[in-house]
């Protein structure tokens, strides 16, 4: 029954002339199909590892819900903060040989929390890898890793208008379920807000700053954010550590 329609479509297929459909697909990063199987975590993971998964945007599986964000990244209130976190924390991880720091776009999967998402940054101590708390999942060709599975020691989310509800509510409970020791939540849109959450059995505890410094057990240091104007007159974020 399907044959006739398919044959007819093929005979008249518009892709026969000019650009082939694959090239055209590449021109449309804002359109994609979520397969029917992607409605549970395993199906979603299969999709997220497939060639058809959109390269652009941010797509997360949060306990049955699929969160889609195709918004462009904001520079001042998001990318600048992320870059500063990378500068300070990636250096710290190397200089004190603490573990591995990953910048954004690394997919984190946690089975207990039914979660597949890309935090704005994540970190795991060497011991966590050694104990198998966090493992890598290879791509189908076996050459590259495309997922981290388990519980890192630290994740960060930088709030944007499109992610506020996800970051401040959904992920706050899911990262806790996933057993992540520390969750940093940063909102740099208006007044800069930095909340350091520490895992406790009953829920994340927001750790109050002491004399302006927030103590991180994971990194073994205290941190504070400072804003100043750079030589272009723009607000610059600095993450200071002691």
């Amino acid at each position, binding site marked *: 029954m399907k044959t006739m329609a398919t044959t007819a479509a093929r005979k008249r297929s518009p892709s026969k002339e000019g650009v082939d459909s694959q090239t055209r697909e590449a021109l449309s990063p804002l359109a994609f199909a979520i397969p029917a199987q992607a409605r549970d975590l395993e199906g979603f993971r299969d999709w997220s590892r497939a060639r058809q998964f959109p390269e652009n945007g941010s797509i997360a599986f949060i306990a049955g819900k*699929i969160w889609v*964000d195709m918004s462009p990244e904001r520079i001042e209130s998001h990318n600048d903060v992320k870059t500063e976190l990378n500068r300070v924390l990636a250096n710290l991880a190397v200089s004190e040989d603490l573990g591995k720091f990953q910048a954004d776009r690394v997919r984190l999967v946690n089975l207990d929390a039914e979660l597949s998402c890309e935090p704005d940054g994540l970190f795991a101590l060497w011991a966590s890898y050694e104990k198998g708390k966090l493992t890598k999942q290879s791509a189908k060709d076996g050459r590259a890793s495309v997922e981290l599975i388990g519980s890192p020691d630290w994740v960060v989310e930088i709030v944007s208008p499109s992610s506020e*509800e996800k970051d401040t509510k959904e992920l706050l409970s899911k990262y806790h379920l996933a057993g992540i020791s520390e969750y940093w939540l940063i909102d740099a849109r208006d007044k800069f807000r930095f909340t350091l959450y520490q895992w406790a059995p009953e829920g994340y505890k927001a750790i109050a700053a002491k004399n302006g410094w927030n103590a991180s057990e994971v990194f073994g240091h205290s941190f504070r954010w400072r804003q100043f104007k750079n030589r272009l007159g723009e607000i610059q974020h600095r993450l200071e550590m002691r």
Partner: protein
Amino acid sequence: MATTVSKRKPAAPKRGKKTPGEDFLPMSFTIPADARDLAGFRRWSCSDAFPEHGQIFYLAGEIWVDMSPERLNSHNKLKTEMGRILANVVVEQDLGEFFTDRTRLVHRAADLSVEPDALFVSWESYESGLVKQIPTADEEDFIELEGSADWVVEILSPSSEKKDTQTLMHLYHLAKIKEYWLIDARGAKIRFMPYRWQETGFEPIEAKGGWYPSAVFGRAFRWQRKKNRIGQWTYLLESR
């Protein structure tokens, strides 16, 4: 000093209240967990939480998302021309109701919730119950058409080609749409590909002397285009 999270008031705004800047970001949304079947998807698509922008369809289990801006020369102009001609034919001959794009069509057997680029429902299809208007919660209006529309059209865009020529070709047939028009105005020539429903599948309607007969509208049609005075395409849907 530590406070537990659960006691804090959530920082996120309540639904309906928009934060500044949210208006600039129509490209983010959450697909609820129960939208995994047609009934759940319809609950979502009829709710306030459903995105106003972009196109989100349910295609037999698959959820198709397209946040691309509409292309004007190869998409919007054709849609406008069809509205001009076909909406007039429908009114003049009192055939039924013509709906432009952004009208949601649902079909249970085809497991489908979609917004075609335009659709038409004849008076007969309403009267025989083939197509129903599904009322809103306040029963003041309707936001879905459910059943077998007489005619639908899809104008191809780079992002929709596979959906329109393969997925919807199959699902519109399952939905017993009498006529399915496909139009592709992206290449060197405008391509008009109308199909009629047959038990075995959609059958291409052949042109006679350059004119494509349509049983649904009781007329024959052809597409022409010419360069207008600003050097762009002007499309003409001619009928006789």
